[in-house]
């Protein structure tokens, strides 16, 4: 298994321009790609058997002031997952849709837009709400969003005479 995965990585490496590759488990490996190469890479991966887009999600790397978009593809024949990672700028985050490669990405892109504010050019419906039926603040999964403040402002709290807190690991 390891062998075939190495072969695949080698094969991918030959064709695509990969900045970094990383083996995570014996069925899973990750590759980092420049944001410009994503579409070409996904199309290639789809053509060699990674036909299922398992998820498209995002990580807020606030320290570097950038977002990392993550595409996880699945190869049903070999039982392999490839994690395709790419970096986009955090200010005015925008990317191009992949619905022409994986039509199902429509809803993942909506979710990413809803929770991180990334816009997807070419996907007409990316700005429609998906999970949050109504939202009036900065996207909630960004690291600079404070849920406590939001919750306090939105949802009334019970007035209790005394608030008990549990002690975890000796720290108050």
């Amino acid at each position, binding site marked *: 298994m390891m062998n075939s995965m190495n072969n695949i990585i080698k094969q991918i490496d030959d064709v695509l321009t990969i900045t970094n590759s990383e083996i995570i488990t014996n069925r899973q490996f990750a590759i980092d790609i420049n944001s410009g190469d994503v579409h070409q890479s996904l199309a290639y991966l789809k053509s060699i058997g990674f036909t299922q887009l398992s998820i498209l999600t995002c990580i807020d790397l606030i320290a570097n002031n950038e977002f990392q978009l993550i595409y996880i593809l699945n190869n049903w024949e070999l039982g392999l997952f490839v994690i395709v990672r790419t970096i986009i700028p955090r200010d005015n985050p925008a990317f191009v849709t992949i619905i022409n490669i994986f039509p199902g990405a429509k809803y993942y892109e909506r979710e990413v837009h809803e929770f991180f504010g990334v816009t997807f050019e070419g996907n007409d419906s990316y700005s*429609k709400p998906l*999970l*949050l*039926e*109504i939202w*009036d*603040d900065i996207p*909630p999964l960004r690291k600079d*969003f404070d*849920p*406590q403040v*939001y*919750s306090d402002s*939105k*949802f*009334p*709290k*019970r007035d*209790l005479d005394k608030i008990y807190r549990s002690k975890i690991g000796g720290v108050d």
Partner: protein
Amino acid sequence: MVLENQDNRNLWEKIGDFFSANSIWMKWYCTGCGAIELPPTMTSRFDMERLGMGPMATPRQADVLLITGYLSSKTLRRVIYSYEQMQDPKYIVAFGSCTINGGIYYDSYATINQLDKYIPVDLYIAGCMPRPEGIMNAFADLITMIKKGQANGWRHYQENYEWYKQNQLDSLKEVIIHDEFHE
């Protein structure tokens, strides 16, 4: 909810309350982790049918709405919708700390903290989650309350409808959700 002692019911209402108390049909709103506590309560170990209680399929038929855990704002809209579809007299029993003060989700951007601001809760069951014994105990209490005419949450809701509505609006906002898959 404070147990008010207002017994100005007439005879028919007392008889009616007797029937209501001895035949409670539940509709449980399975949010969070509380729902899993109900099957043991229903089945042979605890057998809630002894009390004349039983599960019902729709809110139209049910007397009591069980909220079995935390409520996100999205879910709360539907809980209110379900509650308003029930016929009076109707009661609400809320399970666990999440419904009381938000529980471990006290600071979530999507989870409400205090249920009785939005709908009238007749009975809270403490715990995270309450065990079947607790639930059975609560139901026994509920039956007593109904018999005494003290489970008046639905009446309270009718009387203070504006207040409840305002709270709901403040937290949830008016929103029309369209089912985009069928349009």
